[in-house]
C-alpha cells in the first residue's frame, strides 16, 4: 500500500508545485497574498515529497520486493544502514532525493525571506516551484521509483557493492544539496532580471545561499574523493572521470560566483557578470545531471541509460537555461555597473580570479564533452586522459592561489604598489624561509613541485599575516569579534594551501609497489616493513571476505596492523577490494589485497602516500570556512535592520 501512497504524494506534489509556480505570476490579488500562496505551496510541496520519500525508504527497510526499484537495489541480507542509503543508490531514487532537496531549499527560502520585498520573494518561490514541477514531471513520466513488480521478486538483486561504503552513503546527499542549492541563486538572478532592478540588495540576499551551496558542494566532492580512495583500491583520489567533472564544474563556477558576489556586495561592480555566473552555476548542475543520467558518456558512476530520460533532461535544460539566458540577453543591458576601480585594486584581482576559475571550468567542460563532439562529428571515438586535465588545471590553479595570497591585502577601488608590497613583505619572507626549509627536508628536485609548495606556503603565510593584522587593528576586538565572513575566508584560503600541499606531495613523492607475498614474507616500502602474516575467512552480513593481516613496522617497532579485505558479495558474486589504511598527518600507509597467486601467496598493492590527508583536510577547512561565513553576524543584523525599514536602503554599516 505504501508505495502507492508515495506515488500519489508525488503526483500531488507535482500539482502543488504548479500552483507554487503560477501564483506569483498571476494577476489580481496583492503581492502579499500571492506570496502567501507561494509560501504555503513551497511548504506543502516539501511535506508531500518528504512523505513520498519516506514511503520509498519504508519499502526498502521492509524489503518490499514488489517495488521494482527496491528489487533492483536491495537484498534481504543488506544491512539496515545501506538499505536506507540504497534509496539514492540508483537513478529513480536519487532523482527523488534531488526533488526532495529542491523542495527543501524552496521551503528554506520561504521561511527565511523576511527582508525581501513580497513580490520579489514570491517570484523567487514561483521560479523554484517551476523547477520543481519540471523535475516532478521527469520522475513521474520517465523514472517512477514506485513502479510495481508483480509477482514480487523473492529476493532483491542487491545494492551495487561499490556503493556499500560510508563515504558513498553520505556523498550523494551532500553533493545534491550543493547542486540543487545553486538553484536558489539562479532563481534570485532570474527574478531580479524579471524585475529589471539589480541593486546591491540582490547580491546581499544571494550571497549566503551561494555560500551554503558551495559549502555542501565542497563537502560532497571531498567525500566522493575519499570514497574513491578507500573503495576503488587504486589509491587514487581524483580520476577526471566525466561524472567527477560534472560535480567539479559547478564547484568552480560557484567559487567564482562567491568571489564576484563579494565585489557586487561591497562595490556594486560586476553586477551583470555576477548575474550571469549565478545562471551558469545551476546550468552547470543541470548539465551534470544530463551527462550522468542520459547515458551520453561512459563512466563508472553513470546511471542506467534510457534515451527518453536524456531527451527530457535536454528539453528541460533547453527551457530552463535557454529561458534564463534569453532573459539575460533582454535585460542585462539595463544593469548599471557602478563602482569604478583602478588597475591595482581588490576588484581587479577578484576579476582575474573569476576569469581564471571560469576558464578552468570551461576547459574541463570542453575536455569532458570533446569525446562526445568527436563522435558526433563522425571522427570515431577517443577519450581524453588525466594529463590533459592536469595541464589545464594545475597551472591556472597555482596562479589563482598566488593571487589569493595578495587579494585580501589589497584595498578596494584603488591601491598603490609600494605600500602593498610593504604590507606583503613579511609574508614573502616567511614564504621563502618556509619554502627553503620544506624543499631541503623533502629534497624534491623538480621545478613544478618546488613551485607548488612555495605557492602553498605563500597562501598560508599571507593569509595568516592578514589575520594577524586584522586582529591587531581591532585592538578591542577579541578573536570571536572578528567578522565571521573574514574568519571563513581565512580558513578557506588556508584550506587551499593545505590542499595544494597534499595534492602536490601525494602525486610527486608517493611510492607504490605491486608485490607478491606469501605468509611470513615481507617487503619494504619507504622505510616501512610490511610483513604478510596470514589470510583468514571473515563472514560479512551480505558477503564473504578474506582478510589479510599485515604487520607494519618501522625500525622494528610496530606502526600498524593492517587488515585489507577481498569481499565477494553473495547476491551477484561481485568481488570488491576493501583497502586498509593507516592514516597519519604526514603520510598514509595503504594496502589493498589483490588476487591469490597460489601456494598461499597473494598479490598486494602497497602505497606510501605522504600528506594525502591534507587534500581532504584542505577541503574540510574550506567547508568549515563556508559554514562560518554563512553564520556571519551581519546577515542576522541586517535582517533585523531591514525588517524595520522594509523598502528603504539597507543599513550601510555591514562590514
Amino acid at each position, binding site marked *: 500500500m505504501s508505495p502507492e501512497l508515495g506515488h500519489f504524494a508525488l503526483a500531488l506534489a507535482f500539482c502543488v508545485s504548479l500552483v507554487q509556480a503560477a501564483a506569483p505570476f498571476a494577476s489580481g490579488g496583492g503581492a502579499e497574498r500571492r506570496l502567501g500562496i507561494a509560501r504555503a505551496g513551497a511548504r506543502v510541496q516539501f511535506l508531500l515529497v518528504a512523505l513520498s520519500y519516506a514511503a520509498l525508504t519504508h519499502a526498502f527497510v521492509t524489503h518490499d520486493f514488489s517495488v521494482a526499484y527496491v528489487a533492483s537495489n536491495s537484498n534481504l541480507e543488506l544491512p539496515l544502514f545501506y538499505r536506507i542509503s540504497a534509496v539514492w543508490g540508483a537513478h529513480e531514487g536519487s532523482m527523488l532525493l534531488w526533488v526532495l532537496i529542491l523542495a527543501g531549499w524552496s521551503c528554506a527560502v520561504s521561511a527565511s525571506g523576511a527582508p525581501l520585498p513580497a513580490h520579489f520573494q514570491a517570484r523567487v518561490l514561483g521560479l523554484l516551484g517551476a523547477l520543481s514541477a519540471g523535475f516532478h514531471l521527469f520522475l513521474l513520466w520517465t523514472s517512477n521509483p514506485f513502479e510495481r513488480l508483480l509477482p514480487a*521478486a523473492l529476493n532483491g538483486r542487491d545494492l551495487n557493492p561499490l556503493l556499500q561504503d560510508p563515504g558513498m552513503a553520505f556523498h550523494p546527499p551532500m553533493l545534491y544539496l550543493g547542486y540543487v542549492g545553486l538553484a536558489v541563486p539562479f532563481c534570485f538572478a532570474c527574478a531580479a532580471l524579471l524585475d529589471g532592478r539589480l541593486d546591491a540588495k540582490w547580491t546581499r540576499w544571494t550571497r549566503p545561499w551561494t555560500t551554503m551551496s558551495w559549502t555542501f558542494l565542497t563537502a560532497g566532492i571531498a567525500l566522493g574523493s575519499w570514497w574513491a580512495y578507500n573503495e576503488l583500491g587504486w589509491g587514487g583520489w581524483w580520476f577526471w572521470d566525466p561524472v567527477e567533472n560534472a560535480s567539479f564544474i559547478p564547484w568552480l563556477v560557484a567559487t567564482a560566483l562567491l568571489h564576484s558576489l563579494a565585489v557586487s556586495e561591497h562595490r556594486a561592480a560586476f553586477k551583470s557578470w555576477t548575474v550571469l555566473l549565478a545562471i551558469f552555476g545551476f546550468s552547470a548542475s543541470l548539465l551534470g545531471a544530463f551527462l550522468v543520467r542520459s547515458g*551520453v558518456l561512459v563512466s563508472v558512476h553513470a546511471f542506467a541509460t534510457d534515451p527518453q530520460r536524456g531527451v527530457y533532461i535536454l528539453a528541460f*535544460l533547453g527551457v530552463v537555461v535557454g529561458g534564463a539566458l534569453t532573459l*539575460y*540577453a533582454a535585460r542585462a*543591458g539595463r544593469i548599471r555597473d557602478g563602482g569604478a576601480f583602478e588597475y591595482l585594486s581588490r576588484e581587479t584581482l577578484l576579476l582575474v580570479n573569476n576569469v581564471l576559475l571560469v576558464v578552468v571550468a570551461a576547459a574541463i567542460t570542453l575536455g569532458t564533452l570533446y569525446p*562526445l563532439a568527436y563522435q558526433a562529428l563522425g571522427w570515431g571515438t577517443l577519450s581524453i586522459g588525466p594529463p590533459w586535465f592536469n595541464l589545464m588545471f594545475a597551472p591556472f590553479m597555482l596562479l589563482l592561489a598566488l593571487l589569493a595570497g595578495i587579494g585580501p591585502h589589497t584595498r578596494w577601488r584603488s591601491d598603490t604598489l609600494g605600500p602593498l608590497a610593504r604590507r606583503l613583505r613579511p609574508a614573502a619572507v616567511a614564504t621563502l624561509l618556509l619554502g627553503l626549509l620544506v624543499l631541503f627536508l623533502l629534497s624534491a628536485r623538480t621545478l613544478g613541485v618546488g613551485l607548488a609548495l612555495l605557492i602553498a606556503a605563500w597562501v598560508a603565510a599571507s593569509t595568516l599575516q592578514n589575520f594577524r593584522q586584522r586582529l591587531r587593528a581591532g585592538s578591542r576586538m577579541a578573536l570571536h569579534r572578528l567578522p565571521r565572513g573574514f574568519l571563513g575566508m581565512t580558513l578557506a584560503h588556508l584550506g587551499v594551501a593545505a590542499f595544494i600541499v597534499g595534492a602536490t606531495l601525494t602525486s610527486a613523492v608517493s611510492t607504490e609497489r605491486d608485490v607478491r607475498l606469501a605468509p611470513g614474507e615481507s617487503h619494504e616500502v619507504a622505510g616501512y616493513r610490511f610483513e604478510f602474516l596470514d589470510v583468514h575467512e571473515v563472514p560479512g552480513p551480505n558477503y564473504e571476505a578474506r582478510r589479510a593481516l599485515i604487520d607494519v613496522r618501522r625500525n622494528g617497532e610496530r606502526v600498524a596492523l593492517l587488515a585489507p579485505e577481498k569481499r565477494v558479495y553473495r547476491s551477484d558474486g561481485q568481488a570488491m577490494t576493501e583497502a586498509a589504511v593507516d592514516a597519519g598527518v604526514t603520510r598514509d600507509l595503504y594496502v589493498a589485497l589483490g588476487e591469490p597467486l597460489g601456494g598461499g601467496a597473494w598479490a598486494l598493492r602497497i602505497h606510501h602516500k605522504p600528506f594525502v590527508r591534507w587534500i581532504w583536510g584542505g577541503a574540510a577547512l574550506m567547508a568549515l570556512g563556508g559554514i562560518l561565513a554563512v553564520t556571519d553576524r551581519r546577515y542576522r543584523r541586517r535582517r533585523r535592520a531591514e525588517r524595520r525599514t522594509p523598502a528603504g536602503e539597507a543599513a550601510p554599516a555591514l562590514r
Partner: protein
Amino acid sequence: MKTRHLVPLLVFAALAVLLGMGLDLNPRIVPSPLVGNSAPEFSLPRLEDPARRFERSDLLGRVSLLNVWATWCVGCRDEHPLLVDLARSGTVSIFGINYKDQYRPALDWLRRYGNPYVTSGYDAEGLAGIDFGVYGLPETFVIDPQGNIVYKHVGPLDPAVLEEHILPIVRSFEGASG
C-alpha cells in the same frame, strides 16, 4: 539589447545541439570482442537433468539463441514471456545458461513462468559466463550453425530488438540452410 549579451545564449544553443546529437550515439555499443568469433567451449550440467552435460557442440548445426539468465535478475523476468512465446512459435531454438543461481529456485522459476529453453546449463560459479564475457544480466547471444557468435544483446529483450536485430539474422540462416 546588446549583442554581447546574446553570446551566452548562442554558446548554450550550440552546446544543446551537440548534446542532442550525443543522445543519438550510444557509448555502450562497445563492440564485443566475441562477436564474429567462435563461441567459447563450455560444459555445464543441465539444470533439468544434472547427470547430462550441456556443451558447445549442442549448439552446432542450426542457428540458436543463447540466453544468460538467473532468478535474481529482474530484467530476466521482464523478457521471459517474450522468450516463451518465441520458443512456442518454433522460429529458433533457445538455449539457456543459468548464471550464478541456486538450483531449486531456478527449477521452480521455469516451472512457474514456463521453460522456453531446449536446455539450460547450470553455471553456479559463473565460469562459462566469464568465458562469454557476461557483465550484466540478461544477455542474449545469437550463435550460427558453425558455433560463431554473430550478435550479442545486453539487457532485456523487447519486441523491437527481436524484430529489428535478432530475427533478421535468424531468418538469414534459415534461408541459407533451407
